[in-house]
């Protein structure tokens, strides 16, 4: 069921498939047998108490855990039916397809323009300056930031407000035309207005992308996502349509968590 009722959503197709994913940091197990189907053109929310493994799982999806020495990932993760652990798949290429936005806005210490142009340049996505200009503008528009920055493109990205910086990071993430956008608590340092802007953006992004968002705000998960996964102590406890999770969760642990009860 589509809670926003645009009615134009095509039948969901699975973009990311995870089966029996186990993750260890040294001998400590952070995730146990996680299985999940993430729909394309939809927003999937990961919720759960601190330390339950949401970020760990998110990082599995673009192999960001590869860079953590102690981290061992087992199990099958497929993007469009192909294993992301396949030797022929270049992790750098994977990260161009699966972009990430972090909790704290982290613009490069460069101009607004260069922040967005960075990815397309290193991936060689454009062949002329004019093309690059167009791509930067399209990305800033896509992140709902163009109107506020069109006259400030040469100013440092770090000079923007927190909410603007976060939208700049989203513009940077979508500049490489990813297929999937991973967002780890993207609004946790933003005020309600900036949060609404990012949420509105996330809602619109799903027309083009597969979006996965980690959030500690139940209201945010309820507002922006179509599917919600509840993690607890390294287990995926419940995964269902968002409206089901928030009106009638099946598992008592989910119920306790989302209603703020003593678990």
């Amino acid at each position, binding site marked *: 069921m589509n809670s926003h009722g645009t009615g134009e959503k095509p039948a969901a197709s699975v973009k990311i498939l995870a089966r029996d994913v186990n993750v260890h940091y040294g001998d400590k197990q952070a995730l146990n047998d996680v299985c999940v189907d993430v729909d394309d053109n939809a927003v999937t929310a990961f919720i759960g108490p601190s330390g339950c493994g949401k970020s760990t799982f998110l990082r599995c999806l673009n192999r960001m855990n590869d860079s953590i020495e102690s981290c061992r990932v087992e199990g099958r993760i497929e993007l469009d039916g192909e294993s992301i652990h396949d030797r022929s798949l270049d992790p750098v290429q994977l990260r161009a397809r699966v972009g990430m936005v972090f909790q704290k806005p982290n613009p490069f210490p460069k101009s607004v323009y260069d922040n967005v142009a960075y990815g397309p340049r290193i991936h060689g996505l454009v062949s002329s300056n004019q093309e690059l200009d167009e791509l930067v503008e399209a990305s800033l528009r896509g992140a709902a930031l163009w109107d506020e920055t069109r006259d400030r493109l040469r100013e440092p990205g770090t000079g923007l407000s927190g909410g603007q910086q976060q939208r700049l990071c989203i513009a940077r993430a979508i500049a490489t035309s990813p297929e999937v956008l991973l967002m780890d608590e993207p609004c946790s340092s933003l005020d309600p207005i900036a949060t609404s802007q990012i949420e509105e953006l996330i809602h619109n992004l799903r027309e083009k992308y597969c979006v996965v968002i980690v959030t500690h705000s*139940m*209201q945010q998960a*309820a507002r922006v996502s179509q599917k919600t996964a509840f993690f607890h102590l390294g287990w995926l406890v419940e995964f269902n349509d968002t409206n089901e999770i*928030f*009106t*009638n*969760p099946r598992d008592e642990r989910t*119920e*306790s968590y*989302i*209603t*703020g*009860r*003593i*678990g």
Partner: protein
Amino acid sequence: MIEKEHIHSAFDRDLHNLQSSVMRMGGLVEASIINTSRALADNDEELARKIVDDDQLIDGLESEVNLAALELLALRQPIAQDLRFVFAVLKIATNLERIGDYSKNMAKRTTVLLKTPPPNGAVASIRRLSHSVQVLLKDSLDSFAERDAEKAREIIVRDRDIDLMYNSLFREFLTYMMEDPRSITPAMHLHFMAKNLERAGDHITSVSEQVIFQVTGEMPKDDRLVEDTTSYEAVSMGAVN
């Protein structure tokens, strides 16, 4: 059902207060039904008037419940079972207020009946129906307080008996009217009272449905088989005269 406490204890307090207000409302409605039946039996005009006046208390409590629920929605943003609880409370308060209105309407009719005494036996029949409805209401309020979906399901089944009782009362009153045209006025009033009680039963069923939804998250399917069949008796009524 074991109720786990909220981490934020003031939230529990708010929910508890809301439940208490609904229970108080239910208590007043129950008393109103009992008193109406007594006023009818004892020809007690004063009591009948008091029932009419006291309906304001029920209406006042309903507004209080609505406001408190609205505040809770705005300030605590309840979800899952908490949201279902608030939703159920709002609907139950509406149902109770309506039952109170039916009782008030019956009380008004008892004062009319003082001038035109009803046939022997008819009042006793109404009182039996009234008692069944009052017990059903009490049990449905208990099922709400105890969050007992099983009990609520039984009430929905028992409401069918109320419907059957109403149907047979309807025929009884029809007989009085056919036998003695002078009984038409009181019998019509008694019939409306019976109809009010039958409608009250439907609202009690609705309360029970809310309890089931609140507890289980599923709306019970509407499979009430026995309904008021008197709508189909127009032909035989026409044949009377």
